[in-house]
């Protein structure tokens, strides 16, 4: 164990906002978000990289922020659930989760929406199998996944529709 607490300076952008901080090497990204930046929408549900409640995007890729040290996010752009909305308007994924009753207690929801975000960025019209695979790293104990899958399908339709309209 080191004698004095070692800290490392890092800079990162979270939901478009730049931050410069010094952190202990052992600080996990999820703690950085929750405890240092007060972004408590990202949750912790397990200790073993199973449940995905802590999922955020690092440079567009979904990761479990409980399995990344904060120092590793130095220079990265991070998107958390708090960054999904724009000027108070819900993101189409958020809207779809609401419309389809895709959440109950809401604890897993932020992680699931960010896993969805990555999926739909790469696959505009995923079939049910692709959706199940894309959320295989996110545990939900309330919904049985049924309405989550519906919500992701609805989000895909919403987003695809928006893009098609804007390209006309």
């Amino acid at each position, binding site marked *: 164990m080191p004698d004095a607490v070692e800290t490392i300076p890092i800079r990162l952008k979270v939901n478009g906002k730049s931050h410069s901080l010094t952190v202990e090497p052992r600080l996990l990204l999820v703690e950085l978000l929750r405890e240092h930046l007060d972004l408590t929408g990202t*949750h912790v*549900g397990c*200790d073993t990289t*199973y449940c995905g409640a802590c999922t955020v995007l690092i440079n567009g890729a979904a990761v479990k922020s409980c399995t990344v040290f904060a120092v590793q996010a130095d220079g990265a752009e991070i998107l958390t659930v708090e960054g999904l909305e724009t000027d108070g308007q819900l993101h189409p994924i958020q809207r779809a989760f609401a419309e389809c*009753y895709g959440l109950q207690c*809401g604890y897993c929801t932020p992680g699931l929406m960010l896993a969805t975000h990555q999926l739909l960025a790469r696959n505009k019209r995923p079939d049910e199998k692709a959706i199940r695979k894309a*959320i295989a790293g996110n545990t939900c*104990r309330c919904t049985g996944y049924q309405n989550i899958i519906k919500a992701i399908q609805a989000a895909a339709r919403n987003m695809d529709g928006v893009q098609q309209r804007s390209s006309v």
Partner: protein
Amino acid sequence: MTLGEPRRWVGHALPRKEENRLLRGRGKFADDIKLRDMLYLRFIRSPYAHANILSIDVSAAEAVPGVICTLTGAEIVPLTQPFIEIGPDPFAKIKDYPLAVSKARYQGEPVVAVVATSPAIADDAAEVVQIEYEALDPLGDGEQALQDKSLLHEEAGTNRVWNGVFEYGDVDRAFKDAAYIVNIDRLHFHRFSSTPLENNVVIAEWNPKDERIYYSCNNSFPSFAIQFLAAHLNVHIDRIRVETSDIGGSFGIKITSYPQMAVCALASKKAGRPIKWVETRSEHMTSSAHGNERTFRDTRVALAKDGVITAITSRHIDDCGAYPRYEPLGCVIWSQVFPGVYRFKNARIDFMQAVTNKCPVGPNRGYSRMQHLWFLERVVDICAHELGIAPDEMRLRNYVRPEEFPYTTPNGCVYDSGNYPKMLQVAKDLIGWDEWKKKQAAARKEGRLLGIGIGTTLDSGTNNFGQSQIVNPGLPYSGNSQGANCKLDIYGEVVVAVGSCPQGQGHETTAAQVVADVLNIHPDLVTVRTGFDTERNVHTGFSGTYASQFAVSGLSAVHGAAQKLKAEMKRLAAFTLQTKEDDLEFSMGAQGPEVRARGNGKSINYWGLANLVNANTAALPPELYEVTLNCRYIWRAPFKVPDKQKKYGNLTLTYASQLHICVVEVDRETFIPRILDYGAVDDCGTVINPPIVEGQVYGATAHGIGAALMENCVYDAVGNMLTSTFSDYTPITAVNMPAVKYGHIETPSPHSYSGAKGMGEGGAAPIHTISAALQDALFASGIVIADSFNNADSLFRAMVAKEIGQAQKLVRVERRV
């Protein structure tokens, strides 16, 4: 008994009020809350299942920079009383403290607490606490524990927590007259836990200035917790304030967090600062609460020639882990569904509960009833197969009939409404029963192992707490109650508070729907307080969220409070508008919701009414001084105290039912059971908000499928828990879960104001259903499905044992015709 207001909102798919914050990441869960100068607590837990604690040395931990204090069992004994025991002597004599005192009784039991300025430092310090143990032989099995060869709790002198015989009808006669007797040696319902995704969290502050204890936590039955805590901590109950906010699931599990709440308060008192404890997943798996494990021994079933069951006798051994805590309530709760959905009148169940060196159990979605319902479904299903009666036909012959409701069970419970044959038909239609039957016949010709199973189950809701007197006649509990408050605030806003602490069931939404209908306003105009707070003064002794009851107890309380408010508003409006009360109508005006006199066309809006009572009081005549527009209502269930000797009486108010059908195929090479089709039909009476109900059905179905195929709390021979992480326990995920076909019927309950029945637990229908489907797939291979947990490995081992002739013969049929 339904009341008159039109239903513009109740019964409709209103979007949930909860979503706005939860979807934006702005929910407030317990771990999101920080208090000034807060410290962090970590438990050091016993690595042994059973061991004497010889010595504890905390000096190295206390020397770690940032550590404020430690706490041991020996330290808290003089400061506290042992927790109240619900059960009678001799188990009432045991000494249950929240930290092990001289001996540890399960792996994961808290022994020492360390308190530090950060959670990481607390973890560092936890590593250097020195505890010397002397390992004792662990008791890992309820039946073994009942032999009393060694004891967990010496004060009790036995490991038997409770024993009672539930006997009704004329059992001996029924067996004498039976055409067939089916004997089943042993059935076993496994341990699992619904593992809410949010772990337990406690923030406690023992304020030295006023000796008040403040809790911000996610306990799901706070009014029960404070009764235990006040007695344990020697404080007046009003000195304890419990607040909950958003809760990330409980499924009953978070009812039993009060021991950790006690330690956090004591640690706060010692440190003089607020304490936060955030449970880790491993802690949750090893030491939060598991569902009850139950073994069913020596079951005998008497049947008539046509397969109608006439009597059942059996011996049930419930394993409650190391401390009874909420138990032995489970020893009676199962009897709410004594005959399940079946008509048999004669039965004798000898029920025993034992302590073992495992995690204490606690209520877990389907608490105590699901074990019994699974047992009955196995009995019916095994009998059907043994007697060569089609399982669907067997059920139809034995179901309580639609025309028999309200139906009084042999033990005096009153099933309010239901229609099981109709549910069976709806479920068959959902999955295309006839088509599957054809496919099954074809598959069998190819040697494939394809089975179709039915599970019919009950979700009994709104307990009569009088049943606790069946386990301990001295207990001061009976009936059921829930409180709610509905008011017009000073500016006329409609505000509702209720004594529940929801975890995703949409209480804010459904409560608003009910009030909106009473006052004829839009639900958006109804503010429903989030979470629970003892200082809102709406809770009763039974307030919380558990046992499938909000739609009945919670919404009845809300409805009662809203009606009380409406009556006061009418009195006030009649005076102000100079008219009679029956001339008034509630409507929307230009200045918001208002009360209008039909006759003279005058109206007053809600602000005007509230202002008269709160701010413009000189205008109020003395005869209206008692009008407060702040209406507290306590709803009470119409129960009587059951007959304790005969164990007879109505134990629950409503009986929602579920009927599932599942098609499963066991792969001949990998033995992996694969669900090919799944239908779930629900009847919870009148539905308040259909998508919320549907969501509960999907969720309960996932829990059941997970429990049936994936989730099992496994201990090794020396009491190590082998499934102490999610990676070992494997809660069900999206790639495991089949698409569920949902259907429902409505048989309104005559026992609730709205016709709704409490629901949400689901009666563990998938466990019964999957067991039945596997039975159907494997009966021809000579396999009896005798355990509620079946995965590829266990099915493989059963098949091999059969092939090499080492399978135990579990079932024996005596034929007298």
